[in-house]
């Protein structure tokens, strides 16, 4: 049953949550490259050490879009420390699994988020 998406993936692909950008974002992370076929950009807004808003833009396949969408949902409301612990395993669990050759999309989401947080941290230092 590889090479196929489950219902949840398809639902998030069709109605992705939190698409867009945050003006004056607290932090921004962008990973991937057009050459590889996937780019993910995540903006976060942090207030009192809590991630109060996340927005994403993704160029990529269905799994990339759905991973971005679910990741943003999972992160909103978390503290910066909690968010730093977020890994693609959590995402895969929440998403209900991805085809083998699409696992890297969940990793991209993890990396984009980490980069956004690091970007936020570097700014407040």
């Amino acid at each position, binding site marked *: 049953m590889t*090479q196929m*998406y489950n219902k949840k993936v*398809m639902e998030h*692909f*069709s109605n*992705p949550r939190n*698409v*867009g950008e945050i003006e004056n974002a607290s932090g921004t992370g*962008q990973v991937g*490259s*057009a*050459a*590889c*076929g*996937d*780019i*993910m*950009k995540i903006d976060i807004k942090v207030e009192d050490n809590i991630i109060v808003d996340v927005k994403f*833009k*993704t*160029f*990529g*396949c*269905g799994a*990339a*879009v759905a991973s971005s969408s679910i990741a943003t949902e999972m992160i909103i409301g978390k503290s910066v420390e909690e968010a730093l612990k977020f890994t693609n395993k959590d995402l895969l669990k929440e998403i209900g699994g991805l*085809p083998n*050759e699409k696992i*890297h999309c969940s990793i991209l989401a993890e990396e984009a988020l980490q980069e956004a947080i690091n970007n936020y941290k570097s700014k407040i230092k």
Partner: protein
Amino acid sequence: MTEKHRIYLDHAATTPVNQEVLDTMIPYFNSEFGNASSVYSYGRTARIAIEKAKNTIADVIHSLDSEIFFTSGGTESDNWAIRGVMQANEKKGKHIITSTIEHHAVWDTCKKLKKEGYEVTFLPVDGDGLININELNEAIREDTVMVSIMFANNEIGTIQPIEEIGALCKEKNVLFHTDAIQAVGHLEIDVEKMNINLLSMSAHKFGGPKGVGALYVKKGTRIGNLMYGGGQEKSKRPGTYNHVGIIGLAKALEISYKNIKDESKRQLELREALIQGISDNIEEVRLNGHPTKRLPNNVNMSFKYIEGESLLLSLDIMGISASSGSACTSGSLDPSHVLLAIGLDHATAHGSLRLTLGETNTRKDIEDTIDALIPIVKRLRNMSPLYVKGEQS
């Protein structure tokens, strides 16, 4: 959109089996099922059907009946043609010339041969996907055994100058194989006039069943086996005859060529309407492949800033089946080698969409597809970090 309204635009990947073809095949599954190699009556019926099938194919491509060999599909035909000829002609040399836009069945076979010590020249193509006949001429050497250039490309639809290639190969005394898997059933083919020595076809690309193909091998061509076993096909391709598949292949071919002129004209008009409709309504698109030297059923376009699979999935949700590059390579991360070979950058190559027509497609299908594409592209672009202009518009 209900199932009834599905629009299938991926005929280059595979076609449904034509109902008339299926009806012809059915009795052979269990009434006339005998082994075609047997002497008794059941087998004889199968044997006659196979001989008739060879005759049908030979009539279409202008060969002799005895020059047709059945295989398990396009991949086997390509592998057999290339490996079989290269191995059987080592006395002449170990050099083969092919192009940079071949299907993986040819491309990967040549790459494997290279690893085994053969020499391979991969001839480049221009921005439209055409090889240059002068470059081919220069590439041919004393020790060149064969040239393998596809008839028409499966991704971008470009049709090569087959007759010129054939004439050159004849003059230079090298064998000419063409992967005609996308051409058979869609274009007129004359192996005699075109000087083709070997030609691959696959039934499921023109309304026949999957798992059966054929290789035309011109009389006198030295070719080794890909498989060894029983005495079928003069021991060149052993294995119990898949006579049901063979009957299906021949019937599908016969039907395709019955009114090929009208049908190909009809599809060509739909193709142009589709290209026009997309270009008129969506910005920053480009047509991939040659504008006129092109399969009548092929449209391949790149949509900037978006990625092909998202496009496919979105169309699928709307009931439209399409493809991004070659169906065979879906799931791989690299963009299609064909799109790169015609000079596209990676991002643009990733954003390509292939729409391939079949005989059941109507003008309404084309209109519905354009109507579906416009908002999908807009939505995906708005989601794309690469797209800035017109954002949130």
